[in-house]
């Protein structure tokens, strides 16, 4: 709390000194970048992830899983996998799929062929009875009593502002236009309007099935066809060639920095609160990990 208070105070003072930046008193995106040393030319993460290392830290889930496993001992097996042992192609912190030429060549589109890695929680095949369910909920409440909840609300809103900015970014739209031209050699009759919608049905049909409600779910143990890999590799090459990922990061960064500048006090308070929260996680991990 002391740290949070000092940060809040320093923020207010800093905010006063820079209040001339805009009529509303908010700092501009560039001023926020300068203040925190964020350089989107070299950054690999958007500001909210880069400036608050504790935000969506996989340690949160790990500590909670450790508590759950201890609490559920004798009730049901609850498996714990440390963050550095995760084999998923989904980044455990950002929640985004890893997709590049190497991944495309090996997996095709990774969301269709997730490697069967170890996952935390209740093992496959274990039926969760109402009694087990009740015990699990009770354990979850105990975890909340010990840890509280992660102070991510302000930061999540900042992150969301970044994602919302993509549709209005000329840099992103230009990259999408170039990507569509780059993808022409693939000869896809159903090329999506943007890379984030890849792969289309003509490529994914061998790896997905429709469920009873018409939704698409991964086909168990489906292996990427040569055609899928061919399209995926070209897709990855085109995204790199036109700078699609870079354009997305730029747009997100600009919008996140702007959102931070508009709520500097809330941002700083969240950073401070996360430091306190992280200490509790470390205590659990040191005790049970």
């Amino acid at each position, binding site marked *: 709390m002391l740290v949070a208070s000092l940060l809040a105070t320093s923020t207010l003072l800093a905010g006063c000194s820079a209040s001339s930046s805009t009529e509303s008193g908010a700092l501009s995106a560039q001023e926020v970048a300068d203040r925190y040393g964020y350089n989107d030319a070299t950054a690999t993460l958007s500001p909210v992830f880069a400036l608050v290392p504790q935000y969506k830290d996989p340690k949160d889930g790990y500590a*909670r899983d450790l508590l759950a496993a201890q609490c559920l001992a004798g009730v049901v097996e609850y498996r714990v996998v440390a963050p550095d042992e995760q084999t998923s192609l989904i980044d455990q912190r950002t929640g985004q799929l890893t997709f590049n030429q190497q991944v495309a060549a090996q997996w095709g589109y990774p969301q269709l062929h997730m490697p069967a890695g170890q996952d935390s929680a209740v093992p496959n095949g274990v039926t969760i009875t109402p009694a087990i369910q009740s015990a699990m909920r009770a354990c979850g409440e105990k975890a909340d009593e010990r840890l509280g909840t992660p102070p991510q609300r302000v930061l999540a809103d900042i992150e969301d502002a970044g994602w919302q900015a993509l549709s209005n970014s000329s840099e992103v739209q230009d990259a999408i236009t170039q990507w569509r031209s780059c993808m022409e050699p693939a000869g896809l009759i159903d090329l999506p309007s943007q890379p984030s919608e890849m792969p289309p049905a003509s490529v994914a049909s061998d790896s997905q099935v429709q469920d009873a409600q018409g939704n698409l779910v991964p086909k168990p143990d489906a292996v990427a066809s040569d055609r899928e890999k061919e399209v995926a590799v070209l897709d990855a090459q085109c995204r790199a060639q036109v700078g699609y990922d870079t354009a997305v990061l730029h747009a997100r960064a600009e919008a996140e920095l702007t959102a931070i500048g508009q709520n500097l006090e809330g941002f700083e308070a969240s950073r401070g609160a996360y430091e306190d929260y992280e200490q509790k996680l470390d205590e659990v991990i040191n005790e049970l990990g």
Partner: protein
Amino acid sequence: MRIRTRSASAVVGLMLAAGLLVLGAGSASANYTDCPSSYACMWTSNNYPGSPNAYYATAIVLSSSSNLINSISNNGNYSIARFYDASNYTGAYITLNNPARGGQTRDPNLSSGTDATSSNWSNRISSANFA
């Protein structure tokens, strides 16, 4: 991500079909408990009314209910369920924990965001998975 067998989906499909029949007969069932064990579920209306409009055991790309989801529940075995704005597990997302982890495990009204965000998530979800 682990892959489950199709037989589980078939069983749940039958369960849900039975639920739909009951609803068709005038059931007033409206509860997140209609989400079967080992699945995460989504409803197009607030407050989990009756059988879910979509559910998944590993991952799902929504079709008819895409951008129409308004309440969600995680009743899966996995540690965390992610619900994405974009159609192929990319972009902005919200999460629900496994109940044993604590935190949020369901949300009855996405228009007011979730415990983790105040952003409006009504009619936004297009895909979801477990991680």
